[in-house]
C-alpha cells in the first residue's frame, strides 16, 4: 500500500542524505520526495511517499525515528489527511488544440502561467492521481516538459506535526 510519511528533521547538512540513504541501504522504496525548511529555520519538513506492506512501513518509520536528525514523523495515510502536489507542464498549443488545451485546463482547475504562440505552461495542483489524469488528458496534444514537486501533505483537523 502507498503511504505518505512526513518528517520533521534538523535543518542541517547531511540530514537529507541520512534519510535518503536509509531507504536505499535497507532496500525500501521512494516514490516521491519533497523537502523544504519550515517556519522554524532549525527544522526541515520532508515528505516521502513509499509503497510497502504493514511490516515494511513499520520498519521504515522505526528506522527513520532512529536517525538522530529526525525529530518527529507521522504516517499521514494512517488518518484522514490532505495530499497535494504541484506540477508545471509545458504543452504544445497550436491550431485547434490551443482551445482544447485551454478547456482541459479549466476542467482540471489548472492555470496557464506562461504563454507563447506555440505552447502553454500550465500549473496544476492536486493529489497525485489528479495530476496523473491531467497528464493523460494532455498527452494526445503533446507534452513538452513535466516538472512535479512530489507529494506534500498535512493531517486533517486538530492533528499537528510540530515540536
Amino acid at each position, binding site marked *: 500500500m502507498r503511504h505518505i510519511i512526513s518528517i520533521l*528533521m534538523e535543518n542541517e*547538512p547531511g540530514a537529507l*542524505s541520512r534519510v535518503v540513504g536509509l531507504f536505499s541501504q535497507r532496500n525500501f522504496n521512494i516514490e516521491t520526495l519533497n523537502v523544504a525548511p519550515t517556519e522554524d529555520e532549525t527544522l526541515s519538513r520532508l515528505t516521502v511517499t513509499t509503497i510497502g506492506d504493514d511490516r515494511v512501513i*513499520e520498519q521504515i518509520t*522505526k528506522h527513520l525515528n*532512529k536517525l*538522530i536528525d529526525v*525529530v518527529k514523523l507521522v504516517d499521514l495515510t494512517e488518518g484522514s489527511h490532505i495530499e497535494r502536489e504541484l506540477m508545471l507542464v509545458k504543452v504544445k498549443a497550436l491550431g485547434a488544440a490551443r482551445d482544447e488545451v485551454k478547456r482541459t485546463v479549466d476542467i482540471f482547475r489548472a492555470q496557464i502561467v506562461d504563454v507563447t504562440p506555440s505552447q502553454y505552461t500550465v500549473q496544476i495542483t492536486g493529489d497525485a492521481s489528479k495530476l496523473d489524469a491531467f497528464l493523460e488528458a494532455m498527452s494526445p496534444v503533446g507534452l513538452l516538459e513535466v516538472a512535479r514537486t512530489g507529494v506534500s501533505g498535512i493531517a486533517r483537523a486538530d492533528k499537528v506535526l510540530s515540536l
Partner: protein
Amino acid sequence: MELLSGADMIARFLQDEGVEYIYGYPGGAALHIYDALFRQDKVKHILVRHEQAATHAADGYARASGKPGVVLVTSGPGATNAVTGIATAYMDSIPMVVLCGQVMSHLIGDDAFQETDIVGVTRPIVKHSFSVKHPSEIPEVLKKAFYLASTGRPGPVVVDIPKDMTAPTERYEYVYPKKVKLRSYNPVTRGHTGQIKKAVELMLKARRPVFYTGGGVVTGDASEGLTDLVKRLGFPITTTLMGIGAFPQSDQQCLGWLGMHGSYESNMAMHHADLIVAIGARFDDRVTNNTSKFCPTAKIVHVDIDPSSISKTVRADVPIVGPAGSVINEMISLLQGREIANPEALAEWWQSIDGWREERRGKLYEPSAEGEVLKPQEVIEAVCRVTRGQAYVTTDVGQHQMFAAQYYKFDKPNRFVTSGGLGTMGFGFPAAMGIKQNFPDEQVVCFTGEGSFQMMMQELSTCKQFGGGVKIINLNNASLGMVRQWQDLNYKSRHAHSYMESLPDFQQLIGSYGFTALKVQTKEELESALERTFADNDELVFLDVAVDPHEHVYPMQVPLGSMRDMLLSKTERT
C-alpha cells in the same frame, strides 16, 4: 575563562571525559591534534600499524569494559582504513568514537590531497556522525559523540574535523560540557509496564519456555538481573554468540548458544518451545535459520532497546521496548510471591531437554590419538582448562571462532569478544591487544587461524612498542577452514582458494619482533607448550598448533530449514 585551540580542546576534552587510551595513526590533517596530545600526558596514545587495527583495539577495549573506545585517524586513507572496524562495531552495537582529521574546510569538495567524504562513506555504518563547522563547537560535538555512542543501543560515532578547526592560532573558550541534550534523541529508560505484565503472565503459564538472550544483556550490563530472573523461574536459557557469558555457562540451566553452529539442545529447545523470551537479541539470520519455519509453536516475547529490532524478521507477540536491565528488574518484582502455573509441565520439558543433551554427550567430536595431529576442539578445551575459564577471549572469524565459542566455557559477560555481526577476519589480535593494554593484569587469549592472523599481524610491532602480553593461539590447518567446510559440503570439495600453501614460518616471523613462538605438531606436545605459553602473563606468546584440516564445525543448521534441522557430524543429521 580558558582559551584553547581546537586541538587542545580535543586533548582536554578526552582528559575530562576520563579517556585513558586512544588508538590511532597520525597524518597531515590530524597533526594539530597530535601536537596537542604530545603536550599532555594524561591520555595515552597507542600508535597502531594500520588504522583498522586502531578501531579493533578500541572495540576490544569497549567490549571488555563497557566504555566507549576512542580512535584517532587522519583524513583520506587513514579514515577509509578505519571503515571495516567501524562497520564491525556498528554490527555488534559497540560504543566507539572515531575522530577523523579532514582537509581544511575551504578545500572540502576540491578533491584535495588525502580528502575523502568520510561522513558520507561511513553513513550506513555509524550510529551518527558529526562534521565540525567551527572550533568553538568542539567540546559540545565531542560530548554529543560520547553520549550517543554509549547510550541507548550503543554504536560507533564518527567526528570529522577539518584541519583549520584545530589550528593552534585560533583560540576559544573551553568549558567541559557535563551534559548535552539532543531534542531528537531520548533513549527509553524503561519498558511499558502493561506489556511487561503480559510477558510475566505468559512466563508463569508457559509449559515449554526458553530464554533467548543476546548482546543487549551484555552491553546493557544486565547479566546479574538476568541470572536472577532465570534462576527464579527455573527455565532453560540459550544465548546468542554475542550474549555468551551473560548467564553462567557452567550452570545446568544454560543450554549453550544457539543458531547455525549452536548446541543441539539449544536449537531443539527453541524449535519445540511454547514460549520464547528474547531479551537484547535481534533474531539474526544466523540464529533463526528459515524464519517461516522458525519455532512454529512458540509465542514470542521480545525485549529490545531498539524498536526497529522488534518484529524486524520475526513477529513478536509481546513487544517490549526498553533496556534489558530495567525490564528484567521489573519482571523480577512482578514475579515476587508468584508461582509458575505448571511445574510438572516444566519438569517434563526439562526431561526432554536433558534427553537431547544426553543424545549428543560424548559425540561432539572424535578426539585425536597419541602421536596424531590435534583436533581444534581439543586445543580450545585445553586452553580453557589452563586459564580456568577466566581469560578474556578474542577470536578472529571462521571455524576457530565457532570452536572457541563452543568449547571455551564462559561464566562472566564481557569475556568473549568476537565479531559476530560483520564477521571480520583480522579482528581478534588487535582486539586482544586493546584489552590487554587496558587490563594488563588479566589473561587475554586470542584464538585465531593462520588466515585471519595474517590480516592484522602487523600489530606485533605495536605490541613490541607498547606492550601487550596476549596469548595468540593459532589453530593452524593451513586452510581457510570455514570456507573449506562449505566447499566440502556444497562444492564437492573443490577447494577454490581456501588452501594456504605459502604460509610464513611463524616462529621466525614472531621471533623477528622479539617474541616467543612455539610450535605444536602432535597431541603430546600440547600440555608443555601451554604451560610455557601461560608462564608469564606479561609476555606475548604465539602458539602455532597444527590441527586437523578435515575437521568440520557441527552442529550446523541445514540451509532454509527450521531451528532443529541440523547436520550433527559428517554422517549424521536430524
